[in-house]
């Protein structure tokens, strides 16, 4: 067999670049969406709230995160074996970008397929699916040895993602951009719930864990604390993700036995994620100064912390009585774009720093990158706290009853639960002077952070800045704790 080439720098750089561009597009759409809600300015038609929302989620997850994770995957696979079939990888990159571009244009033209996180038209779906198949083919051709944990996560995530993407978008086309799903009614709802959690699991969590399991031992010389748990985590997540979506059929018109089973699987899935995050944090705690001595290490630790916090929140909000209380209020565990924005973007931003700095041997401008991390951490914390508290207050207001009916009759009172502006204030003022305003502040902060991150990535590519230095593996506090004290 002829090996076409083994230089994958081009593919990796293309995916990194595309990941940065799509993330920038996503944050512009996301911020616009939040402003529309806050100012009471949804302005339907071409750029209405309902049009921008899918543009934001599609650009963020399938554009930003998938591209950054594919860049990381090639980086990890290159370390594990000789990469082959670069033209196929390049073709996959091209198909993916074409699919995404067609999908975004289609949504702008009103061809929304109506499935959350699966709004792209059938042509885009086929192109995107094909790009995943190309990636798997390149991986199969390149990897011959027994798989290590990071590559296993990457490969299983890609295969699980590809098949769940196909199953979640099975449809019969009837026009250039229209299609009819193969399922209807509550069965179709079950497919949508399956698909939603699969997108989070296979496209976000699997590559994130895979890359983290590679990065921390390789660049910080900290062996994963419990290798056996990593294998168990991979198998548990792989099996539990497709079963967990049914949890969100609870209290609906769908089969409730299935919903209960989904809740149990969902809680187990979140425990697997918590276990993985705890394993990583404990690994890092055995040599904290190594990781904190480097910018991408700081990003990774914060990213893992956010994954842990969100998994705990998801596990807590899954049982039926919790779904009844906080489901559908502002803190909404069905909204996986929050996880993508809060946790995944921090992890993948850190990983992207890692590859770019090592490839270009240039360090990111320290002030700029540190400011970006600070903004991301503060923003994510604000979003999590304000969103959770607002969700709880909203749920409490929604279920408060008097003899005459609901105690809070106005829907906007539920929407703005936790505001201090008073009932007579304008909607915008209610939004700003409340928890929703704090949430928005966090959102804006994360947005500015990602924009700053993109700027510093640009400076790395342009070869600006100081020479890159690997993490300091021999810091005094680890060698001699007493000296450090």
């Amino acid at each position, binding site marked *: 067999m002829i090996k076409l080439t083994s230089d994958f720098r081009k593919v990796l750089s293309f995916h990194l670049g595309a990941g940065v561009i799509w993330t920038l597009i996503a944050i512009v759409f996301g911020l616009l969406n939040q402003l529309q809600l806050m100012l009471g300015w949804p*302005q339907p*038609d071409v750029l209405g709230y309902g049009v921008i929302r899918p543009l934001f989620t599609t650009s963020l997850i399938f554009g930003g995160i998938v591209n950054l994770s594919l860049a990381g995957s090639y980086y990890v696979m290159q370390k594990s074996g000789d990469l082959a079939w670069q033209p196929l990888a390049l073709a996959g990159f091209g198909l993916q970008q074409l699919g995404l571009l067609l999908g975004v244009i289609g949504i702008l033209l009103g061809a929304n397929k109506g499935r959350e996180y699966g709004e792209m038209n059938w042509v885009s779906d086929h192109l995107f699916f094909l790009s995943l198949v190309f990636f798997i083919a390149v991986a199969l051709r390149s990897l011959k040895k027994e798989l290590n944990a990071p590559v296993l996560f990457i490969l299983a995530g890609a295969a699980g993602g590809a098949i769940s993407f196909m199953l979640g978008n099975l449809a*019969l086309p009837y026009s250039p951009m229209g299609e009819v*799903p193969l399922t*209807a009614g509550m069965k179709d709802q079950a*497919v949508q719930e399956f698909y939603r959690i699969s997108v989070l699991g296979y496209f976000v969590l699997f590559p994130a864990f895979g890359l983290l399991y590679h990065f921390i031992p390789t660049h910080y010389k900290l062996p994963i604390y419990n290798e*056996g748990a990593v294998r168990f985590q991979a198998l548990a997540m*792989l099996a539990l993700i497709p*079963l967990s979506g049914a949890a969100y059929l609870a209290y609906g018109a769908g089969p409730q036995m*299935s919903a209960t089973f989904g809740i149990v699987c969902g809680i187990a899935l979140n425990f697997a994620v918590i276990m993985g995050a705890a394993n990583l944090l404990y690994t890092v705690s055995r040599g904290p100064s190594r990781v904190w001595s480097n910018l991408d290490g700081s990003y990774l630790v914060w990213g893992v912390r956010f994954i842990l916090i969100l998994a705990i929140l998801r596990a807590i909000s899954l049982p039926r009585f919790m779904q009844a209380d906080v489901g559908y209020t502002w803190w909404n565990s069905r909204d996986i774009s929050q996880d993508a924005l809060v946790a995944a973007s921090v992890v993948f931003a850190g990983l992207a720093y890692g590859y770019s700095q090592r490839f270009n041997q240039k360090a990111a401008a320290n002030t700029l990158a540190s400011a970006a991390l600070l903004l991301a951490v503060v923003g994510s914390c604000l979003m999590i706290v304000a969103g959770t508290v607002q969700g709880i207050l909203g749920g409490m207001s929604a279920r408060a009853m008097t003899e005459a009916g609901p105690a809070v009759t106005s829907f906007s009172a539920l929407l703005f639960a936790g505001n201090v502006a008073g009932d007579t204030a304008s909607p915008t003022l209610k939004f700003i002077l409340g928890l929703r305003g704090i949430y928005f502040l966090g959102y804006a902060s994360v947005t500015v952070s990602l924009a700053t991150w993109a700027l510093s990535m640009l400076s790395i590519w342009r070869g600006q800045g100081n020479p890159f230095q690997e993490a300091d593996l021999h810091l005094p506090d680890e060698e001699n704790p007493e000296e450090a004290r």
Partner: protein
Amino acid sequence: MSRIYEKLFSSPLSTVLSSIAIVIVGYGIAVCLPFSENISHGSLSQLSTEDTLVLKGHEVYYQEGCQYCHSQNLRPFGWEVSRYVNVEKYGYYPVPTAMEYSHETPAMRGSFRIGPDLSRVAGKQDAAGLTSLLRGGKEDNLRNRYHAYGYLFNDDDLQPLFLSWKIRMMLEAGVPLSDPYHKSAFDRLEGQTRGDALVAYLLSLGQKSMQYNGAFYR
């Protein structure tokens, strides 16, 4: 556990194949098994199928992204039913049933409540009220600011040919519609706007349940 792990993930190819198999089995358990029995029994199945204008309205609903603010998943709690159903008028709690949605593809249960739940909007609003709401009122309140959809009532390009093809595909996918039904798309959509279609769809939400319960109590 380690034996299973070693068998499933012994090589790159077996990892890919096992992952695909695990997801397919999971899909079967979560999606196919619970819905394997025929759910079209019962009186609701005797009600007429959806109007073609309603099917078009369903399309307008998700193309405009209404599902990003409104859920259609009324839950069986007193406080929720009281909020979204006109209980005084109808005197019962019509919690949605799977049968009501048998013609709906894709499903529109939604995952947000930035706006109220719409499962039973037919019992709360009439056509004039919904039209006025969607056109955006003159008052400056949240409800009007969020619903400036007046342009939908100027757009009369409902593409009946595509809708008839869509209905044909729905038939292929097993949605219980009859063949002559899709041919009526041209006549039914004549002179209608996208706004009219959306109103027709919204007025269908909860309608079947009310019809059935009305017939039952009579």
